[in-house]
């Protein structure tokens, strides 16, 4: 039986305080938690005391796993933040979509760090290769995983298909028709 309160020590260079706080927030339903720095200031110590009726078995592993989840989620969120912003721009100004691949792409890339430029170049190449060499060759895709959901299962009326939705929006003057043409035609 683990001793209570249990002490879990983190290196803040590896796990940000935000990731640890995220895990603490989730675990507050199960435990009483205190956080403090180690005496030399180099570590963060979480002290967990299980609430009544909560099993202490595996608690430390769960807490560590949750901290790791939060740390990964924060990196994902940070890494894809610019894309989130761009999508918001497009929601409010559909013409912004036209800028993708041109000015906007450059903007995104020059602001990004060199690693990310390398990675997106690699990814773009891979996507191009997949598209050109196979042109969606379904014979090599027996599970149909490359087939979009809408093609696999069909679409009920005009409610769902994004392209159809865009067309409908254009008819209602909610979106620039040129944008739609470009998307539909490409």
């Amino acid at each position, binding site marked *: 039986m683990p001793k209570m309160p249990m002490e879990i020590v983190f290196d803040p260079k590896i796990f940000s305080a935000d990731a640890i706080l995220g895990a603490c927030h989730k675990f507050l339903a199960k435990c009483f938690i205190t956080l403090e720095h180690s005496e030399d200031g180099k570590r963060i110590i979480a002290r967990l005391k299980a609430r009544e009726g909560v099993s202490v078995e595996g608690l430390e592993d769960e807490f560590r796993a949750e901290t790791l989840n939060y740390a990964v989620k924060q990196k994902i969120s940070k890494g894809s933040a*610019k894309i989130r912003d761009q999508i918001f721009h497009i*929601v409010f100004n559909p013409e912004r979509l036209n800028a993708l691949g041109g000015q906007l792409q450059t903007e995104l890339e020059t602001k990004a760090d060199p690693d990310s430029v390398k*990675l997106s170049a690699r990814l773009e190449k891979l996507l191009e290769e997949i598209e050109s060499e196979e042109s969606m060759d379904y014979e090599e895709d027996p599970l149909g995983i*490359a087939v979009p959901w809408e093609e696999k299962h069909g679409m009920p009326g005009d409610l769902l298909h994004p392209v159809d939705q865009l067309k409908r929006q254009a008819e209602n003057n909610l979106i620039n028709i040129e944008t739609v043409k470009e998307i539909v035609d490409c």
Partner: protein
Amino acid sequence: MSAIDIKKVKTSNFSGMIPFSFRKLGDTYIVVNEYGNYVFLTEEEFVSLVENGPSALSRPVVKELTAQNMLFTKETAARAAERLRARFADAARATNLHIIVPTLRCNLRCVYCQAAAMSGDNYETDMNTDTARAVVETIFDAPTKLLSIEFQGGEPLLNWDTVKFIIEYAIELNKTKKRELRFNIVSNHLLMDDEKLDFLLEHNVVMCMSLDGPAFVHDKNRGITHDRAVEMYKKVYRRYKEAGAERLPSLIGTLSKHSMPYHKEIVDEYRSLNAGSIFMRPATTLGYAGRNWEEIGLTPEEFLDFYERMLDYIIELNLKGERFTETYAIYALCKIVAGFEPGYVDMKSPCGASIGQLAYNYNGDVYTCDEGRMLGHQGDHTFRVGKCGESSFADLIMHRATKACSIASTLDTTPGCSECAYRPYCGICPVLNYHETGELSPNVFTTRRHAVNEGIIDIIFKRLMIPEVGDIFVQWTKNYMESSSREIEGAKETEEGKAVKE
């Protein structure tokens, strides 16, 4: 423990990706982008994705990520923006569900009654004609094409004259207002007679009856009423069917502790009445249920155990060729497999408080929703947003309780939810949060709603991983979307509405 080496996880790995979150279920990672598309990855694939970025993955996986809008391209950006726009558009639409309580009186005394109904002679809780007129006029103030008026109670049929008046007056007003009008009644049917039935049928009023299962379950919750209720339901159903009504009567049930062992029997009861689907919601802590909680209340774990057994039984029936659906699953699946907002006000972000529904009490007080109204009945009027005859629609929508509920139920800004993979599918309830914890925004991980929603979505995803069950789920979703397409059209805003907003 996961094999991810956090030192290898760099933010730059995700610079070509649409923002996403993830959840591990068994050996599988469910990767969900912010707009609701999802992909299942093995642990190995997921670890490689986060440690090395998507370009290090095998081609089939990259193809799948592309097909599911996980990688940033012009097309995926357009689709993601479209999903987001649909969500905003939904939140910006004026209220179209209007719940009226014509009386608080009821002829039953259900153990879990959320409405805390009054006994049959409390006539002072009947809505009078002047109030009813003011209620209808307030409803028509809402700048939306579709107006759905739902009668709840108490037992609405106990104040039949007011119900009739409201329907007739709304139809009269609509001659000039030209909205798409719908009427629904949630009733125990015990007071139904031919005169009422003729009127309801003639005015296309959709009927919904409460049924908790076979007699030995239903009567334990609702008093000895099962046989009579079923008899009336069959009669109403037959009449609607013969008349070729567009929408047939439906059933809705509540779960208490008594129901727990009987998932099969409850489903079979619904099947025997040709219901075609089932929607069993757990009793909440509001109203009388709070007082009897020890005896009747369910923990989230108990509810989820029941739900899983019930859903599996229904899936088994479908695998044998019978078409029978489960409504919680459909609401979640619409968002999961199709990015379609089914409009279920309790599983939306922001939730439907005031902006999706308004509840009108017998005395003309208006609340954010029926749950807010129930709390009002317990003496706490935090969620009262105005009064018919005094408040304009703008007053109701601009009320601080409306704003507070919208803010408190927006998952994107709720700690815990904002990082959760299920955010695109989920919804939280400020009224219940407030009632259960005293706070509009408590730590979400301590709330019943979180435990129930997370559990339901887990159960659904686990079954989506099984191909033949996935096919059944997709079929349910398509059918539901087809049947609700007319309503979505109807929900479009009127010119009048746009003008009001400007």
